Each structure stands twice: as C-alpha cells, then as structure tokens.
C-alpha cells in the first residue's frame, strides 16, 4: 500500500462527494446550497490539484487537466456568488443561484472524470 496513493485517492473522491453535496437540491433555491459547502469544495479541489503536480505520466497529465477544469468552474461559481451577495443590490436571486449551481455541476463532471480515470488506472495497474 502506497500512502501517497491513499492521500491522493482520498482528496479526489472527497472533492467529488463535497461537490455533489453542494450540487443536490433545487437548482434555484438558495436554501438548498450552502456557502460553507462551496468553500470546502474549493479548498479540497485546490489540494487535489496541487497533489497532481509533478506527475510525469500521461495519466497524471490528464488528471491535472481535469482538476484544472474543475478549479476554473468552481472559482467562477464562487466569484459570481461573492459579486451577487456583496457587490450588487439585488443579492442572491434564484437565477443567479441557478447559474452558480450549474457551474458547480460542470465542476462535478470534471471531478467524475477524475475519479473514473483514477479507477481505470487502478484496474490497469493490478498490483
């Protein structure tokens, strides 16, 4: 058992599960999506991305790419949230909430791809 692989797998799967936790619920209902969840999703995704740095294999490169995509979407989501909540008069309207959640949905797909790739690698490796 390689402890590095444990940590790596842990963070990738945690990123996916947290992302899912934020994503579920009515898409435009602010009560169903919590700011703290988004915060943790971003933090865990960042950690997962940095963990993928410096892996020279082809798989490592693709994993890094998916993580970068997820980060991009999540940062866009949190940016929209921050601007809507603090910089506009209207606050968090249902339509803005819907776009935040859909962005996080996109990030979730990237995270799913990450996990699928991880599973494929594990199956191929057989050791």
């Amino acid at each position: 058992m390689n402890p590095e692989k444990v940590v790596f797998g842990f963070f990738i799967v945690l990123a996916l599960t947290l992302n899912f936790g934020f994503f579920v619920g009515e898409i435009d209902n602010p009560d169903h999506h919590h700011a703290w969840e988004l915060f943790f999703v971003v933090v865990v995704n960042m950690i997962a991305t940095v963990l993928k740095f410096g892996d020279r294999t082809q798989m490592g490169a693709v994993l890094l790419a998916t993580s970068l995509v997820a980060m991009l979407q999540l940062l866009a989501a949190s940016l929209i949230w921050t601007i809507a909540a603090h910089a506009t008069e209207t606050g968090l309207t249902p339509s803005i909430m819907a776009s935040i959640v859909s962005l996080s949905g996109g990030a979730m797909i990237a995270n799913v791809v990450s996990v699928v790739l991880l599973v494929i690698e594990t199956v191929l490796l057989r050791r």
Partner: protein
Amino acid sequence: MDTIFFLVLRRMRTPLLTLIVVYAIAMAGLALIPAQDADGQPTAMSLFHAFYFVSYMSTTIGFGELPNAFTDAQRIWVSLSVFFTVAVWIYAIGNLITLLQDSTLQRAIAERRFRTLVRRLGVPFYLVCGYGQTGSALVRGLMERHIQSVVIDVDPERISLLQLDNQREYVPALCADARSPQALEAAGLKHPLCRGVVALTNVNEANLKIAIAAKLLHPEVKVICRADSHEVEANMASFGTDHIYDPFDAFASYIAFSIQSPCQTLLIDWLSGRGGEELDEPRYPPRQGRWVICGYGRFGKAMYKHLKARGFELSVIEAEPHKTGIPTEGVVHGRGTEAVTLEQARIRQAVGLVAGTDQDADNLSIIMTALALNPDLFVIARENHIQNQELFDRVGAQAIMNPSTIIAHRIRMRLITPLLSDLSRLARLQRDEAWASQLISRIIALVDGRKPYVWEVSLDTMQAPAIQDATRRGQTITLGTLLRDPLERERTLPAIPLLLIQGEERRPLPALKAPIGPGDRLLFCGREEARWRMDWVLCNIHALRYVIDGESRREGPAWRWLAAWQSRLRGV
C-alpha cells in the same frame, strides 16, 4: 524544458499544500467566530470578507480591522493566524529559493540553455569532445579562422575555464559525459550544420564510443579521433572513422620523414604552421649512426620502428623491460637518467638521443646527462605536460614531441586547409627535394621572414560570385587574373598558388596561364593581406572587370541597359 518544469512543480507541492490548508483554516475560523457590526449588534463575517482579510493579513499586518472592528475573540484568532500564515509564506519562499540553488535544477537549466544555443547555430560547426590540452589548442586554432566549435567535457573545471578564457567568439560548452548519446545529441550531433565530430578525450574507450555514436546517429558527419593504441585504432577504422590520429606514431613517422627529406619537411612545417610567426631554422637530423632510445613505451616503440626502417643502429634503455617487451637488439636495464646506463648504451658513439619516458623530470634529466657526455647529440624529447614547455625549450633538444600539440596541429590543418594534406601527399609521392627547396626560396622571398598564411578558395557561388557571373557571360578567367592587385592591376599579389584541383585532376604549383572556372578549388600561400585583396576580385564584379581589362564599366543590369541605349543613340 520538461525536466525543469516537473522538477519545480514536484518540489513546490508540499509548500503549496501547506499554504492552502493554513489559509483555509484561517478563513474558516474568521467566518465562524461571532462578530459585531458598527452598532455593536452580533453578526457573522461572511466567507468573502474572511478571504479578503486573510489575503492581506499576513502580507500587510496592521492594515486595520475590516469591515467592522473586531471582537476580542476574533483578535485572538487573527493573532494566531498571523504567525502561522507568515511562517508558511517564509517556508514556501525559502523552498523556492533552495530549489533554484539546487544543483540538479541548475544543471538542467544549463543543459537547456546549451541545447537552445546549439539548435540556433546558423553556421557550420565542429563538435569537440574533450577540452584538455589538445581540445583547447584545437578550439583556439579553429577560432582564429572563424570556425565555430561546440565543446563537451566531463570536467566542470575545464568548462568554466573555457568560459573564463575570454574567447573572441562564443563557444557553447556543456559539462557532460560525451560517452552518452544524449549529451552528443544535445551538442548538435544531429544538427544539419554539424560538419564533424572530433573525439579528443584522454580515454581511448571514450573516443571509441563517441566515434561509434557519431557514425550511427549521423552517418554523413566527418569523425576524427585520437587513439593511443593500435587496437583501438583498428577498431575505429573498422566502422569507417574518417581520420584517426596516434600522436606517437605521427611524430615518429614525421621524424623519420624529416631525416629522409628535410626540405619537404620544412616546407610542410611552414605551410601548416600559423601564418605570421617567425620562420624557424631548418633542422637536419643525422642521416646515419647510432641512436639511443630511452623508454620503450608507446613513443619509444614508434620511434624504434621508424628509425629501424631507416637502417639506423639502435640501443634501447628501459627500466621495466618485462612490462614493455624487449627489442631484438636487447635492452639496457635502467632509466637512462644515470651516466652509467647511458655509457652502457654507448652514448659517446651515438648521433641521436630519444628521451621518451612518460615522466617529464626523467626526460629532462636524461637529456642533461647525455649532453654532458656527448654534446653533439641530436636530441628528441617527449614532453608530457605543456606546463613544462619552458624547461624543454632551454634543455637543448632539437625536436620536442608533445602529443597534444601534435594532434591539435594535425586536426586543425585537416579541418581548415584539407587541400594542404593533399599537397603534402602529392609532394611526397611525386616531387623531390630540389622542388621543395626551390619553393622554399620563393616563399622566403615573398613573406619576409614570417611564416606564410595559407588559405583555400573554392570557386562557388558562396565564395566567388563574381567569377561565377563572369563565366556565365562567357569570359575565360586565368589564375593570373586572380593574382592581380585590384587596386593597381600591374602589381601582382604577394601569394603563390600551391595547388589547383579541377575535377579529378590535381596540379601542384599550377601555371598562371591556367584557365579556371566554377567548381575549381585552389590552395594559396602568401601574405595575409593578399587574401583580403583577392576576396575583392572573387566577390566584386567591378574589381574583377578591372583586373581583367583595366576598365571600370557600368555593370548593373539597369546601367548596362542605359549604356546600350546611349550607344544606340550615338549610332543614330
């Protein structure tokens, strides 16, 4: 590129992770701790405000408490967070600085820079492996003729020496083991402009490996090697190494040849030396008698073989004959540094002495003792280290054999003026001593006590566009035309044409009436300024026209058309 990028990413992983975690905890704490607004009402800090505050907290401590004044609970948390975030920043930056000083990374960066430099080279170059005595002499010699070289050496000290040397032109150098094909490739072995690979390391096996790699990776490239043993030499020759130089054999055959034909030797010495140096006195080794050879190693054996072939009587002195083998005449046991052993070898009746051990101190001592016993000796000294040059100059040896200089000299000649090797071979086979001594007197008259400058001219579009242009218009150009001074056509340039190659035909000392045309190759010797003047005739159509018929006409297409139009007007 890849290596550096991944190295940095990999090493920065832990610091970045620590930064993220510490920032996340600081933000979470700030957002969780109850706060109060301007009126003292309890409220909570949003995650956005927490992010904002933490972002500037560690970098600009004392910016103030925003958006509202803090509660004491918040202040406790912030003071803790300040210490942690600052510590993490110091850790991350320190890590980055350590990484930049890391020798692996620095080597990777140096190699990358070297690769880029070599890839961008726009001129033909030679790849020199090994920057020892031979390599540095060769690189300097090539640079004098503005020929680019690229250097690999395994010793970092020599590479920094090269960079400190303050060369006239930039020589890209890499510290790497030339035995690895990657290093050779980085140094441009596969580069289309790579003209040749010169393997000059002091390890025979390394030279062999370089030759093999060069022949496999870039078959068209010229490979020149140094080999100190006949086995390695035969091995190199077996897969088509172009030129192999064995310094001991080269020098021994040179001495043997100079005994046979001193004038030809002197001639080739002058021509292959550096132009502009003082002419040296001819040496006349004795033509018969007894030679004493001290040291029966590689050099001693080579001298023995060549002197034996000339029919000399020989005595050999060797300290460890069981290791080196014993010649048919037998051997005097000893080092030759003592008078007794020299007497035993009958030094008083000898005409020549070869001090050929691999210890410079021994060689010097042998020469001094022997000259005390017999001051008329012709002395050949083997100099192993170039630092001892001054001592050898003073000891009174007529010929000094330094392996590195000999090899560097031969290779330089081979690379810069390949036609000179042709000439010396032709002279050796077809011409006699009288021919050589006549040519020597012509050169003396021409160059005024200095060694002549030797250069080659190929009549192609690159080197001689004017000649190309003139022959295309149907003019015949003779060798005499080239040798006229473009400033004053009645004068002849101070140069002698040594060799003319037309197709398969090689003509030494061609006549001035000989017609020349595109594709011909010429070898000249003379004063250096003659070469620059001749370049005018080769490249400039006006200069060429002037030396042909003494007129300066309008030569550009538009001007020619105008001239034709004018003459037509005049005709009407």
